[in-house]
């Protein structure tokens, strides 16, 4: 009984201690800085609707900063808006606009400096340089924020959610538009990126560097300048994401460079110039992905090895797979290819002749891009047909030995 009474007492003690400080034009505190200065650890600062221009708000105590009806915090295009320098801070329900622009200081809407357990949720960020910037954070939750920037040039724009040298981050349900990179990860480990929407960013929807053992699941990346890029990492899990409409040369649904021991499962690649581009990748399992209406389904360079491509659907792509050399150390078995023309005599749903996803014309275009001029001309289909009968240029080993007769899902 005794410990229980103790806990209850403790509970009431803290209850009594945690006060709520109201900020608003008709309240005791007219501005947020004053309330922040007087707040103690564990307090809540409730901010009423209004337009606050308070230069940089620096939070140095572990408090909850909560906005009612989205009070506007204005950086006047000169200042960083909120700096968080305490553990366990909660920032909830603000509209943060017009941060300053400085590549030297990386001015942001909200910046977390070397802290743990910070929660940033339900905020609207408009016209900020960097949106939410976390440097050296641990176990922070960034949830349901809406970030919009309107810069045209890469130099004039920062990243939406920028995590640097962090661990155990959760980035959930955010919407990011118009930034340089939608979500940027560098040296971030054991983190999850879940259900975010990253649309129309200037460079990448998601940019991933030296970040090991992370997962990104059920995100939607659409119409970003160069798609999504995952580089120099191992143990990355990519599940059920949608990569859509990333157009242009150098734009890829998903760019993988020097990735090892990773999983790409259940993703959808639709209408990209290239669905996946792989370079120097190894030991990657690709399963149950859908490649539909892309220019190139997969561009897999000869520098990749031990890539297992199984049970994927390739539908309506101009070229299913292309490569740049004759060395093939990867396996492509049990996929469905809509261009497969083989037969299945024993009716086990597996085609009896192997399928070669690399067409002769795609090799020609790879070596000599202007040959795109002859796309869909009679001569190229003639060349493809001859090559199918007698492979000479296309890599001998790149084939699906067990192509499926029906699509998977």
């Amino acid at each position: 009984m005794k410990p229980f009474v103790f806990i209850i007492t403790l509970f009431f003690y803290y209850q009594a201690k945690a006060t709520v400080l109201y900020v608003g034009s008709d309240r005791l505190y007219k501005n947020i800085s004053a309330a922040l200065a007087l707040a103690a650890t564990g307090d809540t600062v409730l901010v009423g609707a209004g337009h606050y221009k308070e230069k940089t708000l620096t939070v140095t105590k572990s408090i909850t900063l909560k906005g009612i009806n989205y009070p506007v915090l204005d950086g006047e295009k000169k200042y960083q808006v909120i700096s968080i320098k305490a553990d366990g801070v909660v920032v909830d329900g603000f509209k943060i606009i017009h941060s300053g622009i400085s590549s030297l200081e990386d001015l942001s809407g909200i910046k977390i400096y070397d802290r743990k357990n910070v929660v940033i949720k339900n905020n609207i960020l408009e016209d900020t340089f960097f949106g939410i910037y976390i440097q050296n954070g641990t176990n922070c939750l960034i949830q349901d924020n809406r970030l919009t920037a309107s810069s045209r040039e890469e130099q004039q724009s920062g990243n939406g959610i920028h995590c640097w040298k962090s661990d155990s981050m959760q980035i959930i349900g955010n919407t990011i538009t118009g930034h340089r990179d939608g979500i940027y990860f560098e040296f971030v480990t054991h983190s999850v990126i879940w259900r975010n929407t990253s649309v129309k960013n200037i460079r990448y929807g998601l940019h991933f560097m030296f970040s090991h053992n992370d997962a990104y699941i059920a995100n939607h990346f659409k119409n970003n300048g160069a798609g999504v890029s995952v580089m120099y990492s191992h143990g990355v899990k990519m599940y059920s994401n949608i990569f859509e409409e990333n157009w242009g040369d150098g734009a890829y649904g998903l760019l993988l460079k020097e990735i090892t021991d990773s999983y790409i499962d259940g993703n959808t690649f639709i209408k990209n110039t290239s669905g996946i581009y792989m370079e120097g990748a190894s030991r990657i399992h690709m399963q149950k992905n859908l490649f539909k209406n892309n220019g190139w389904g997969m561009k897999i360079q000869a520098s990749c090895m031990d890539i297992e491509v199984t049970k994927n659907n390739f539908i309506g792509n101009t070229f299913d797979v292309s490569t740049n050399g004759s060395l093939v150390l990867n396996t492509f078995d049990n996929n469905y290819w809509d261009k497969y023309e083989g037969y299945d005599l024993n009716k086990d749903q597996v085609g009896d002749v192997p399928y070669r996803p690399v067409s002769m014309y795609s090799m020609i275009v790879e070596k000599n891009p202007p040959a795109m001029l002859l796309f869909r001309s009679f001569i190229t289909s003639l060349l493809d047909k001859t090559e199918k009968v007698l492979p000479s240029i296309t890599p001998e080993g790149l084939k699906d030995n067990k192509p499926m007769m029906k699509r998977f899902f």
Partner: protein
Amino acid sequence: MKKIIKYVMSDILQNRIVLVYTFFLLVTSLSVFSLEDNNSKGLLSLLNIILLIVPLVSIIFSTIYVYNSAEFIELLVSQPLKRKVIWLSLFAGLAGSLSIAFFIGVGIPVLLFQPNAIGFMMTGIGILLSIIFVAIAMLAAVKTRDKAKGIGVAILLWLYFSILFDGLVLFLLFQFADYPLEKAMIGISALNPIDLSRILILLHMDVSAMMGYTGAIFKDFFGTGTGMAISFGVLLVWSILPVWMSTRRFNRKDL
């Protein structure tokens, strides 16, 4: 002139081959649209028909027609008519009737199933191709007196425009692979009406593959209003120039 055109057209439209050609086009386009699950895929299959069959039929039929109406032409020449008028009416009759055949065979189904910019463009380009190859056929026919040789030349010309030219382009591309050829390729494509038509249609349809670096350059040119205008201008030149040359030749020809 009107009378001759009317006569030529009614003669051709009653011709069994043109009827079969129209019917064939109509059946293929209708079946293509009803077989494919989405209409843009149907358009793609139709594209091959337009780029191969239409020029072939236009060029061979016109050549044969011109040779077969040699006596009719001689009769007309003996009348108080200008040679230019006779030749141009013959051209107008041929081009008009083959265009009508194409419009009924492909144009109407396309506009029924795909009544958008691509559909209109495809119909327009198909008609232009018919006219261009009638013009080329007439040039070939007026240049060679022998019927067998003339038809051979027509077939060779078709072969050149639909296959050999592309082979040459591929050869050139590999010979000059070290040079930036993207912009030059735009110019080269103007040398072949079939290539030009194909690129024009594809750039409005199958954008995904064409959007690589080269595709972007093509898109920059062919996708803009000026680029479109220039390409259609080039196609018009392709139809006018052979007609003009053949008219000049016919004026002086000893029949």
